[in-house]
């Protein structure tokens, strides 16, 4: 059976030779290589569940009166978009499970990307020849954040309505071209009827297409360059160690995909997420205190709260308040991330290609820097919910905020120093325990000579 299919295909495509070489491809076995894979599978789940939902979603802000089966909202005016979300959640069999799975898959997608990014950073996997893939990965992160935001914004509920207005003001604060960009994306000063159809089109066509394309490029590069290896016995820059694509890696990978799918299904059915029917439809005169964005935007929200109130001008131009924390700060973070492989070359003065990873304790400065940035972002993340925390702790908000401002400087400093000290200790102990092995020098020139 397989033989005859193979013959049929091969006599038309001559792919057998290629397929043979594919099966031999080697993948490392370490668990941390699965993080990127989890992100990939989360994306697959997003596409599957998203396609189902798109068939029910009505991206229109036309005013309708609800008559579905969720009793508390019967007779309430709302947008057609919000109504279609309620319809999917309450009147379509399995609709709510699929919708919650979609939202959870999005959170897991972002989480896996972030964890993957950290793994790459702390093991210096971005070094030559993988700088390009590092940048593609960062672009994927940006697109994923944007698409996540678009996704929950089009439900047109009270919570996302507030988020939408904040997103709108951030885009509006872009220097000079802000208003034009904003009108292009939102169709006018919100609320206008053009907004939801536009965001919907971006959410289901533009961004997924870009993400899928870049995932393709990311994978192609990984395939071409092969994965890195953790250092260890028998590992060097000239070989890859692990299991072959067929059969062992294929089985594990299918298992992982199914497992991610299972986790998403379990979360989607047992853990409520984004209950838009509780928030109610967006209304200009309603408010929802304690509103929070999805987790991956928490750091920007926190920055917007902690940044002091400054009224600045550039010449006669006003610089909007949200420009600094909402646009400039994330932009700087991402620019530094994009440039990091090259910054690292200047720090380490190492311009060679590497296929074996550098462990965190072998690069104390980078590790300390990474931990400090993480600490900073964590403080911002906490600050994103400072009003909720202040209420829970019974402390005055202004006081909380002042404390968090100090913490935003102190925590990174402290974490950085501690991380540096730990790395140094580990390094010293290791070099004492394991007598320094003669490094395996990897002289490119020699190899080239050999190969010619």
């Amino acid at each position: 059976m397989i033989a005859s299919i193979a013959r049929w295909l091969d006599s038309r495509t001559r792919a057998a030779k290629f397929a043979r070489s594919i099966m031999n491809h080697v993948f490392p076995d370490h668990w941390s290589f699965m993080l990127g894979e989890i992100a990939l599978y989360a994306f697959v789940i997003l596409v599957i569940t998203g396609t189902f939902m798109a068939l029910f979603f009505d991206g229109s802000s036309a005013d309708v009166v609800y008559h579905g089966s969720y009793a508390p909202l019967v007779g309430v005016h709302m947008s057609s978009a919000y109504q279609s979300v309620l319809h999917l959640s309450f009147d379509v069999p399995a609709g709510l499970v699929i919708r919650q799975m979609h939202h959870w898959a999005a959170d897991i997608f972002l989480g896996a990307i972030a964890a993957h990014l950290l793994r790459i950073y702390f093991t210096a996997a971005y070094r030559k020849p993988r700088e390009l893939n590092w940048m593609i990965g960062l672009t994927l992160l940006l697109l994923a954040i944007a698409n996540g935001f678009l996704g929950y914004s089009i439900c047109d509920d009270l919570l996302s309505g507030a988020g939408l207005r904040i997103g709108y003001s951030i885009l509006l604060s872009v220097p000079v071209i802000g208003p034009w960009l904003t009108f292009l994306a939102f169709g006018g000063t919100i609320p206008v009827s053009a907004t939801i159809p536009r965001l919907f089109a971006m959410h289901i066509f533009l961004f997924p297409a870009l993400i899928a394309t870049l995932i393709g490029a990311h994978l192609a590069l990984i395939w071409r360059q092969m994965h890195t290896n953790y250092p260890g016995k028998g590992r060097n820059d000239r070989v890859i160690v692990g299991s072959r694509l067929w059969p062992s890696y294929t089985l594990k990978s299918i298992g992982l995909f199914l497992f991610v799918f299972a986790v998403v299904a379990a979360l989607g059915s047992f853990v409520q997420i984004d209950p838009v029917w509780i928030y109610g439809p967006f209304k200009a005169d309603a408010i929802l205190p304690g509103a929070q964005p999805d987790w991956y935007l928490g750091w920007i929200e926190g920055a917007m709260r902690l940044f002091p109130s400054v009224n600045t001008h550039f010449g006669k131009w006003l610089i909007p308040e949200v420009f600094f924390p909402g646009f400039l700060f994330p932009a700087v973070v991402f620019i530094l991330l994009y440039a990091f492989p090259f910054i690292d070359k200047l720090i380490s003065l190492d311009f060679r290609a590497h296929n074996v990873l550098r462990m965190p304790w072998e690069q104390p400065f980078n590790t300390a820097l990474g931990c400090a940035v993480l600490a900073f972002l964590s403080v911002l993340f906490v600050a994103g919910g400072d009003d909720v925390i202040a209420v829970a702790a019974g402390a005055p908000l202004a006081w909380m905020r002042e404390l968090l401002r100090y913490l935003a400087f102190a925590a990174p400093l402290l974490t950085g120093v501690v991380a540096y000290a730990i790395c140094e200790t580990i390094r010293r102990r290791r070099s004492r325990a394991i007598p320094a092995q003669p490094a395996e020098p990897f002289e490119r020139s020699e190899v080239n000579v050999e190969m010619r």
Partner: protein
Amino acid sequence: MSENGLHRERPDLDQATERKIRTTAWFATGVMLSWNLGKRVAFALFPSLCAQQSEKQVAASNPSQLANSDRPSSSRASDLNLTLAHETHLLRRRRWGTFLVGCSFAASIAGFLLFFTAYWTGGSNQMLGGGLALFLSGWAAAFIFWAHLLTAHKEAVEPREDMQPPARDREEFEQAFCDGSRELQRRGLLKLITATGLGFVALTVVSLFRSLGFNPNNALYTTVWKRGQRLMTEDGKTIRADTLEPGSTVIVFPEESLGSEKAQTVLVRVDPSQLQLPDSRHDWAPQGNLAYSRVCTHAGCAVGLYLRTAHMLMCPCHQSTFDVLRGAQPTGGPAARPLPQLPLYVDSDGNLRAAGGFSTPPGPGFWGMPS
């Protein structure tokens, strides 16, 4: 109706249970993560512990070595014994593997049946998703057990392609490219038409932007408020100068566009003797009626809270506060510009009307904004 059964659960699930489930999940994840991390740090700090650990790891990842570790440590073991031990081990492994794969798949079947019946009989969301999760995770476990126990795992080592490419490749590419372009005649003209064509494409795209209405024109500066518009509540009631008690508020709109978000205004009444408006605004608040734009100047949320005793309007998004008595100057939080004020007057019928547009453009700032 079968459909009714499907959706009653979520809204009724009480908040406490909800929170408990979530906390437990986070807690478990946290414990697992910190255990793992702690172990790693500990092993890294004390390499002597590490020796045992790494042996175990090697053994787990490499069954052929696992077999070897079964080998009696003394060198007296004969070859026969060795092979026997190895064979027994493999056999045990295969049986054990088959058993686990079987169990997982049995769970998977049960999960699928649960999902399937729940779907067709209108079962609850928990049954639907739980069934799906069991079905998929059982199947996943079967694959993973298969990979680990029923696959003769050999660590593969492959040479990599050298990432430093031979210069010859590049030279050949350049050669081929140059040879090809030499066949082109009038290369200058080709460049010209390509560049011009691309320029036209850019212009076409920008022109299409126009269809998308991307030019803000005046939209960011103006609202429908103008002199003479009556202040009305959303359901169309007019407001008289004494409708509000001091210390209370109401949301008002221009009579021509009730419910407009951009024009939404909060009307606050205070004791006129407390007012500290700038001189230029001395007649903007007849009988202590103050009207401010309700769109936050920080990031556009609705400034929805009024702190009566402090005379502050507060935005729930990032907790900016605005002093109502002093022209809604920001007094706390990230907002840096006051809420635009709407000048008011009382007409001959005693109704409140706008005496003009907002003092500044309402809403979040942008770079061209007059201030």
